[in-house]
């Protein structure tokens, strides 16, 4: 079994329901996110459009976070999920530095690394991840990539040529795919980022916690 995620960016409308569902399900502390939706505005008025990109851990086959973790707190499960053992984590933040997707953070309450686990605890009980359940337009598609009859495998088949991963050049082999994505939505260097001037916030830098 190889679990994977796919987001159809053409369907996503940026409601952030997945973001909130994840926060509630996993009790993610304030100022941290396991999953978030990034808005990028493209073009010049009046020819503009807004793109929405849900961003979470990519559960890479060749995960840099797993490789750099000195104590195997980050480890692979048999179903392909890159899981984290917070009791073992020493908080060196090597994984935060190694992840090319900015998907790992230091939990300010436990002072350990944390990230999306594809809701491994729900999957163990045969439930879908919280973000999948919450999505009103079924933009989040989750399932077994090894099973050709699963929804995700069929979706990838139907959309062949239009399926992308983030930063493929890093050789991480992510198990998280995007359909109808583009350079602007998937490449952080393709859009200008003026921190402190986003629509709803003036916070420029998130605290890492502890002594930093």
């Amino acid at each position, binding site marked *: 079994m190889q679990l994977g995620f796919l987001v159809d960016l053409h369907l996503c409308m940026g409601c952030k329901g997945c973001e909130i569902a994840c926060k509630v399900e996993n009790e993610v502390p304030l100022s941290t996110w396991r999953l978030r939706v990034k808005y*990028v505005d493209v073009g010049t008025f009046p020819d503009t459009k807004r793109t929405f990109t849900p961003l979470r851990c990519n559960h890479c086959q060749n995960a*840099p976070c797993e490789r750099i973790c000195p104590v195997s707190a980050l480890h692979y499960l048999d179903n392909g999920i890159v899981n984290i053992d917070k009791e073992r984590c020493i908080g060196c933040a*090597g994984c935060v530095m*190694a992840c090319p997707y900015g998907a790992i953070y230091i939990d300010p309450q436990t002072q350990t690394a944390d990230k999306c686990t594809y809701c491994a605890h729900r999957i163990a009980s045969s439930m879908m991840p919280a973000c999948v359940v919450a999505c009103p337009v079924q933009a989040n598609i989750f399932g077994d990539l090894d099973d050709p009859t699963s929804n995700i495998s069929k979706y990838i088949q139907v959309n062949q040529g239009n399926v992308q991963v983030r930063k493929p050049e890093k050789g991480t082999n992510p198990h998280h795919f995007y359909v109808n994505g583009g350079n602007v939505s998937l490449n952080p260097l393709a859009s200008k980022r003026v921190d402190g001037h*986003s629509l709803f916030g003036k916070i420029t830098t998130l605290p890492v916690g502890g002594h930093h």
Partner: protein
Amino acid sequence: MAAHEILAATNAVVTLDVALPGTVWPWLVTVNMWAKSIGTGVIFMLFLLLRKHPQSAKDLRFSTTVVSLIFIHIFLLFTLADLHQPFRMWHIFFHPHWTSAITVGAWMATLFVGLLFLLAFLSSIKKDNVAFDKALTWVVLLAIPVTLYTAGLMAQCTARELWQMPTESAQMIFAALLSGSAFMLLLGGSKLQGDAQRTLGTVLGLSALMSFILYMAEYIFGPMKAEEVAAVLEYIKGDGPYTVMFWLGQWIAYLLPMALILMYRATQKESLLKLAAILALAGLWLVKHVWLMIPQLLPMS
């Protein structure tokens, strides 16, 4: 396509996202690298002096070992202080994950400390210089990977393209040679004869030159290869947030010491060497800090 061309073509602006994470590896890690360079560098220099200038180095065995022990312990202390869960450090020894440079480094550093204590014992209590010199060879061999492992760690940070293993490992070795020779010039003082001073000055000057060449090579040619490197180096160009610190570091760590060593070779004034050594040690901290910080400023998502 360069980042600025994409930006101009799409006029794309992030309008809603979480704020960027703060600095993950702060100045504590800079001190870690700086102290490790000195701790291993003085061992390299003691080995060199004992072979080339044994008369000058014969009374430096114990003091150099103590200096190395002090700086390796500073390195270990700041490594521990940087952990968010420092009391779980023992997990590295009981749950080691050998693909991680952190694990390999921690084990090697521990062994290195043990061997340094052995050197201290041989030089101060047993007073056996023959045994000391034999053990020193093994300590030098271990000091090489101890000083290099941070380059491996930085290389394992897949997200940070600026940190490439070949250049970082060369920088780590040159940093150890630079700081080791600088510290030995200060430590040796009047015990060092003129030829030993000249040797240390040459090592200092050449390692400063090589380090400077590497940084300039990255600065000029790095952006031609990778979009991310180009974006990161913008932080030390123009009115970038680390431009001033970067150039201060280059001048204080490399350019001024090189000039002072050339002047020393012409005038034989010992004070010039000492000034070069102090500048190199101070500037190395700045250089290391800038190179540690700038890749962390780039948004990953």
